[in-house]
């Protein structure tokens, strides 16, 4: 707390970047103590969207908890659905048919694209350029149309089931997906020309809030935040689950292109490149999807064997780990969901020391946090 006591004694100002602020990506409150524009301490205060999801998990059955996983991370609802399904299948050792796994990979990667689109769009909107945000939402609308055709809802899909998926792909779905991929791939280069390499944008992001590799590992960062610091750890490659080993894709790592590795620009560019990789995965999956059933034989009142399992899958915002304890009854006994945003918020206070107020907004955007994942 450096208080300059030379001629004019100045005092620090505490500002409430309160629960309602245009660029906190939801109801996050950051208590800033600033010395003019320079922030000396930024303490995040979370919990404004805590809805007690884990308590609900203990009171509903395994199948009934699936719609609640949509509300866990509503920008990547498919990934959370499938994470819950995979976790229960790992606990109860259920064999899922091949076509269901392919469908799950297709929808998870499509949802990763639409989640990164919102991350990219809202990040540029926080930096002041509002137009790329609307282009990103326009692309996201086309992904919504695909999901609406597949499972009947635009945002809270409730598509996966324990043992498979709720419904097979309607006719024309795979063609429409291919059509979307061909339409979407050139758009990424257009975004890069429009905003990613724009001088002002680069100056706002490069060398801001640098997270070195070992600090990212120590704080348990995962996903694009970890890969942005140069650690090539991707669960789909290093702890492969479902049918991911069948596809070849590159793990995008931050290389310090426009500044030092691990700065905001790297995390941003990792997400842009990851969208390209997801397009490649979905192309391969659509080309090689086998026929067959989409649902394994699972009794309606499903009672898994007693035991404990920890399953983690690669969600757009980092690793979503589900620690599931079952005592053999219809309801889960204990359910702990560990998410990427929760851990990203943990490092927020250390990273934002000495930055300016405009950079606080940049750091929130680069960590790509989302509040229901933090508060659950």
């Amino acid at each position: 707390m450096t208080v300059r006591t030379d001629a004019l004694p100045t005092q620090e100002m505490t500002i409430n970047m309160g629960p309602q602020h245009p660029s906190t990506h939801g109801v996050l409150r950051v208590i800033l103590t600033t010395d003019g524009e320079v922030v000396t301490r930024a303490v995040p205060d979370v919990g404004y969207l805590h809805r007690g999801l884990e308590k609900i998990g203990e009171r509903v059955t395994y199948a009934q908890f699936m719609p609640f996983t949509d509300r866990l991370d509503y920008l990547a609802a498919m990934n959370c659905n499938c994470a819950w399904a995979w976790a229960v299948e790992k606990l109860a050792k259920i064999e899922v048919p091949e076509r269901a796994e392919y469908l799950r990979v297709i929808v998870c990667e499509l949802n990763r694209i639409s989640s990164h689109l919102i991350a990219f769009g809202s990040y540029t909107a926080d930096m002041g350029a509002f137009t790329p945000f609307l282009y990103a939402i326009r692309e996201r609308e086309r992904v919504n149309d695909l999901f609406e055709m597949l499972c009947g809802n635009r945002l809270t899909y409730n598509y996966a089931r324990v043992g498979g998926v709720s419904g097979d792909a309607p006719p024309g779905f795979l063609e429409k997906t291919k059509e979307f991929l061909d339409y979407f791939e050139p758009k990424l280069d257009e975004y890069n020309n429009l905003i990613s390499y724009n001088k002002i944008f680069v100056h706002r992001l490069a060398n801001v809030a640098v997270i070195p590799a070992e600090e990212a590992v120590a704080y348990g960062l995962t996903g694009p935040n970890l890969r942005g610091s140069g650690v090539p750890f991707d669960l789909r490659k290093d702890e492969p689950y479902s049918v991911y080993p069948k596809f070849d894709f590159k793990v995008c790592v931050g290389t310090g292109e426009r500044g030092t590795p691990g700065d905001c620009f790297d995390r941003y560019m990792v997400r842009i490149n990851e969208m390209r990789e997801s397009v490649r995965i979905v192309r391969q999956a659509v080309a090689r999807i086998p026929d067959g059933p989409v649902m394994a034989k699972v009794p309606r009142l499903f009672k898994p064997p007693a035991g404990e399992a920890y399953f983690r899958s690669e969600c757009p915002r980092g690793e979503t780990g589900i620690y599931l304890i079952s005592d053999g009854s219809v309801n889960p006994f204990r359910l702990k969901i560990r998410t990427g945003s929760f851990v990203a918020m943990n490092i927020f206070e250390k990273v934002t020391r000495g930055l300016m107020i405009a950079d606080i907004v940049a750091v929130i955007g680069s960590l790509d946090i989302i509040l229901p994942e933090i508060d659950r």
Partner: protein
Amino acid sequence: MGLKEYMNDIVEAVTTTAKGMRITARYGVDPKEEVTLQYPEERWEIPAGYRGFLNNDVKTCTACTMCVKVCPVDCISLESVRGADKKMVLASYDINIGRCMYCGLCVEVCPPKSLKHTSGYEMASVARGELILHFIAEDAAEIKARVARQVAEAAVKAEAAKAADLSSDLSSEAARAAKEEAAKGEPKK
């Protein structure tokens, strides 16, 4: 900050800005790029499986309360009373769409497939009460009363029928007894 970097900064700033503005200009000039759907006039055609407001076809519904049990939010409230012919008669069937989360679990679990998603989504209302859809027009109490009367009538008819059977049994009893006497009487000769 060497002079070369200084000039490079300026040149890079101008070129990247120009590249960005060329793209926004292309969108600005080209009317084909516009994707707006003027909602009240043009509407997005809803795909087949869309999970809109729920609708229960009351005739085929067998009041088996499977949907009430499976709903994670308890937004379906159902009252039924046992009819004369032992089948359940629906007294009232309400779905509170203000609380429903449109997850579709009830539609999957409904045995007679009477509960289905419609493609409706426009039900903005002024009072919170209007968010409760009532699928049975009549008031629940009237239906209960009517069914109770039917059950009572059926019971009375059953009583009468039983009484009639009883008496017929008696008479047939008596007739058989008489026949037996006759039969017993005859073989002694």
